């Protein structure tokens, strides 16, 4: 072993240590931001989190008490309805991309879904405003669901495509070799094999849309009271958070932080659920 080689080797180890330290530092900084946001939200909003927050609707400014039940329920309804609207289209596009790779529509579909994925969310709201709010003559939970649905379609398409391309081609070939038509193989063999991954993608799209305020500003609009009729304006947590945050009232500020916490918990829970679903293979 020559001396220079020994030295070169030692230097390489030093470079490796340095790089590892830099990577660790970067990771730590990224987490620090998340931690600070969460800690500050907890500090500011935890005081407003009580049973009433979940069970009562909001009160007019100046009146103590009340909760954000109407926003919590509204979030689930508008987001859930949006998912129902988006699901068939998102899944269908993903299936086309993954299962019919030589289909002439695919290059356009891929470009479109990439563009839509990067599009500012407020534009989906604008689209829903033109397509739903204007013809129906007013703001509504349904139009908000359309806006969130538009937002979810490209996410669903891309996640479905990714998950389906992980299914071994042997599953498809074995099905076709039995004399099954292609659509039957996809429906009865490929999709069930990818079930866990599909559920994960659906939950992540749902969580992503749940946190959006912008597309709902001129669609769902918001409502101070619990509203279960999707043809009427409905409230959601991000909308209420925005409205409260720009208000001049101390009590509402605290509730805005609490809304943020609930939203954070909701999205974390959905992500955990998604991870749990994807861990159970088949």
């Amino acid at each position, binding site marked *: 072993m020559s001396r220079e080689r020994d030295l070169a080797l030692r230097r390489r180890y030093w470079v490796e240590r340095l790089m590892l330290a830099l990577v660790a530092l970067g990771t730590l900084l990224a987490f620090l931001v998340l931690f600070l946001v969460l800690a500050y939200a907890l500090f500011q909003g935890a005081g407003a989190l009580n049973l009433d927050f979940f069970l009562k609707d909001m009160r007019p400014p100046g009146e103590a008490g009340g909760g954000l039940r109407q926003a919590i329920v509204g979030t689930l309804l508008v987001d859930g309805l949006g998912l129902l609207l988006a699901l068939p289209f998102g899944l269908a596009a993903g299936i086309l991309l993954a299962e019919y790779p030589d289909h002439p529509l695919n290059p356009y579909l891929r470009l479109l879904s990439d563009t839509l994925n990067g599009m500012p969310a407020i534009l989906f709201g604008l689209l829903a405003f033109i397509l739903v709010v204007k013809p129906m003559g007013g703001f509504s939970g349904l139009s908000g669901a359309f806006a969130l649905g538009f937002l979810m379609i490209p996410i669903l398409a891309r996640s479905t495509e990714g998950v389906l391309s992980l299914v071994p081609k*042997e599953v498809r*070939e*074995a099905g076709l*070799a*039995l*004399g*099954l038509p292609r659509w*039957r193989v996809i429906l009865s*063999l490929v999709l069930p094999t990818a079930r866990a991954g599909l559920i994960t993608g659906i939950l992540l799209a749902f969580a992503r849309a749940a946190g959006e305020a912008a597309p709902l500003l001129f669609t769902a609009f918001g409502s101070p009271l619990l509203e279960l009729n999707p043809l009427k304006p409905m409230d959601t947590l991000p909308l209420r958070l925005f409205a409260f945050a720009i208000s001049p009232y101390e009590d509402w500020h605290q509730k805005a932080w609490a809304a943020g916490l609930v939203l954070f918990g909701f999205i974390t829970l959905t992500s955990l659920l998604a991870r749990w679903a994807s861990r159970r293979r088949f």
Partner: protein
Amino acid sequence: MVKEALDVHMESRRLVVRYGTRLGVGVGGGVSLPLYRRRITALIGPSGCGKTTFLRALNRMHDLTPSARVEGEVLLDGENIYAPGVDPVLVRRRVGMVFQKPTAFPTLSIYDNVAAGLKLVGIRDRKRLDEAVERALKAAALWEEVKDRLRAPASGLSGGQQQRLTIARALAVEPEVLLMDEPTASLDPISTQAIEDLLLTLKEQVTIVIVTHNMQQAARVSDYTAFFLNGEMVEFGPTETLFTKPQDPRTEAYITGRFG
């Protein structure tokens, strides 16, 4: 017992398979090969010689590969399966396939795996399904091992059992021809033995084409053997003749182990 006359069940005529611009199988004039009814034909040759590519052309599996092009004819009882208007789904119902890797459908039970080819085309008759599943599993020599746990997931079976399950699954739709792509390549000697025994029973009803890397296996189970090399079929004949008196020096070199 009267020896039944030889009868061509399937036949390739000047068959060429190309992948994109790369060279394929049979480029120098095409592969012409008869497959006799209720006989076992083995396709042998070194890796990359085109035997699997040829096999997959026999039930139109290449339809799924956008870059693959097939020229020439494959006759099934005299009808060209590549003629315009022929539905590949119907071809595959008559010409089944077993793959190298045991591929039980992971989400289905043992019963549903075997019944898949019937259930998924809409056959719901309980009694008919039960009978078909039992018959197929018995034919694949798996019935005794699984009859008490037909509802259990198929992913719990061993590799050898899964391979016999895929054979049972292929048999359940009652194909006339069974294409087998190195069916024992990933199995231990005991499972291999079980499948070879099975082939000898199956050929009473089904025409079998088997791709194998294992020359002993070809010699043990097949009636006819075709030797492939560099994308061309070099020699075809009764297995015994091909292994004892090969006509082509390349065949001789391969079977005596001088290459491949």
